[in-house]
């Protein structure tokens, strides 16, 4: 677009002022009007001051390597809720596929993510994972990016996490780092979670709705806390599990569910 000389200097000045403003604003990456993703659980939303900021970096660590699946489920459920119609990119190292398996299409529907919105990338090294995360964050068609890093992955230092959170903030994409062990290096993530497995409620017909133990260990916007969350399959969201809750009633719009549940052979070992 050709502009006249004095217009060009004005545009240049405006651009410069914008740059200065951005530089001043940067220390608090989560501004006033960041979109928030509420959990729908009052205790959790209160700790997060409204909800999870959607254009920031969050770190989700599994308590131990075997707990990677529940942690991945938590991360994918968050990504699914935020993604709506856009795509989710999942990046893992080659080693992850061998050790913990790959996300399975038919199982993604269980956490609310449509497999056709899912793009998975397998990167040879951990720094390729970080590079791919940054590239994917810049794409406008991507709503959430999940990068899986294994124990001993070098490069998850303040610099890398800061770059990722800047890219997330600039493009309004949700960035999640999924780790197989909790690290304690300083990080620029807005929240840090530790996810462990949690036994489900007693269900005479088999395994109940899945539960995870979520510990919020670092939070810039509020308090920390630990909760047991249960995934509500019909409403496709997390609810707070209370110990001793009786079996959830079958959903009214799925009458055949109760028939299916009753026909399963179940066993329970005390």
């Amino acid at each position, binding site marked *: 677009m050709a502009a006249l000389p004095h217009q060009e200097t004005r545009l240049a000045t405006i651009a410069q002022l914008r740059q200065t403003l951005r530089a001043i604003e940067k220390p608090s990456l989560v501004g006033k009007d960041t979109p928030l993703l509420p959990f729908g659980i009052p205790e959790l939303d209160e700790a997060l001051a409204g909800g999870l900021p959607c254009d920031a970096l969050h770190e989700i660590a599994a308590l131990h390597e075997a707990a990677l699946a529940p942690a991945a489920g938590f991360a994918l459920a968050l990504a699914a809720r935020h993604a709506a119609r856009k795509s989710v990119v999942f990046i893992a190292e080659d080693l992850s596929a061998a050790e913990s398996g790959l996300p399975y299409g038919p199982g993604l529907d269980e956490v609310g993510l449509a497999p056709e919105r899912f793009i998975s990338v397998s990167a040879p090294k951990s720094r390729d994972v970080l590079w791919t995360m940054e590239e994917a964050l810049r794409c406008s068609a*991507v709503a959430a990016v999940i990068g899986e890093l294994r124990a001993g992955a070098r490069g998850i230092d303040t610099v890398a996490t800061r770059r990722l959170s800047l890219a997330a903030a600039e493009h309004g994409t949700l960035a999640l780092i999924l780790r197989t062990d909790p690290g304690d290096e300083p990080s620029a993530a807005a929240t840090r979670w530790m996810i462990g497995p949690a036994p489900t409620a007693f269900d005479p017909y088999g395994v109940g709705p899945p539960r995870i133990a979520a510990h919020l260990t670092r939070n810039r916007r509020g308090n920390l806390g630990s909760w047991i969350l249960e995934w509500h399959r019909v409403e496709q969201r997390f609810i707070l599990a209370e110990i001793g809750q009786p079996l959830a009633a079958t959903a009214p719009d799925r009458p055949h569910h109760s028939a299916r549940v009753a026909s399963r052979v179940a066993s329970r070992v005390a």
Partner: protein
Amino acid sequence: MYPDIAAIPEDPAADARLLAAMADWCQRYTPLVAIDAPDGILLDISGCAHLFGGEDRLRDDLVASMTRFGFAAQAASAATIGAAWAAARFSDTPIIAPQRERTAIADLPLAALRLPAATIAAMGRVGLKQIHHILDMPRAPLAARFGADVLRRLDRALGHEDEPLSPLLPVAPYVAEQPFADPIAREEDVLAVVERLAGRLKTMLERRGEGARRIALTLFRTDGAVKRVTAETSRPVRDPHDIRKLFSERLAALGDEIDPGFGFDLARLSVEIAEGRPDQQIGLSGSEDEADLARLIDRLSARLGRNRVTRLIAQDSHAPELAGVTMPAQRAGRIEDGWNGFRRFRDDADLPARPLRLLARPEPIDHVIAMVPDGPPSRFRWRRALHEIVAAEGPERIAGAWWNENGWPARDYFRVEDKTGLRFWLFRAGLHRDLAEPPPWFLHGMYA
């Protein structure tokens, strides 16, 4: 006897590689280059000679370059492959004008017709030593005596029959190239040239309403080596900026393999595969996002490799490992229909929940104790950790491909939860009544 002679053992493989490299270099003259083993190269220069100032200038340039590289070369051009071959090896004429093949090759020995040695010996015994001896002979007795091949070679040399040339690389539909008087070596310069050539290709592609799906960048080094880099895209592209970014990722991925040496003196960008792509309106938000996603997939594929960026495809199979598979994202087309079909099937058949992560290969588990032989296990050991099961669902019987000898036995799948709250998808391979020893157990996936 002769201590000064340097004796080097013959290495035909290395010779073949060298010849292939030389043929690659000859691509700068024409895209139709074929190797004439063991020591010849064929170039089809129809339509290319004028770019170099005529056939004789092209030939002189070729011979001079080969001499500069240290090879002794003879070159000749004619209207047919046979006549050119004969002239290059057996005569001194550099160019045979069209329709003059007869006179030009008449005095050459019969070996100039690429006949096998036995045939030449047989013909020599009856006094046929030069081509003019057989030019006017009756054809049928000649063929009967020495084989039809003699006549075929003769006809091809004289132009009565067409001889095809099978080039090393297919001819690209769109090509743009840029020679450099001052060779370039820096990556930024190469990328700038790519963008400029892509701009030229864009006008060509727009005229036909097509876009590029596979683009090749060929860089000719001053010392004769040729480097070729290809990039693929998931949908037809025309934008020079996108093409430049693609090659920037490719060059970054290849790193040191593209060694410029003393510089590149010719850069050629060719579209190897083109697909129809009508002009699109910009500004519709949906298609913008799709285009952006396609660009991201192309960039990641260019940098990491096409098979590392995948999408999930639903397949109509009851075997769990085949029901959801991955496919390179650049190749996958519409996948929503597959998944809608899967969801319909899942609701109709009331499929039990599938795990979030599936292991590539089911891992064997041991120390399995089940209360009932056909029931779910009450504990198992996996990767040296013992898991005590407190709840289980199942069995879900998935039969193997019983029509296939190599099909796996029927599997009874169980969704189990252990004491700590981890949930697994296990199966028992085979039924107790079918196997002599207890059937083995495997772990196939993990639930969230």
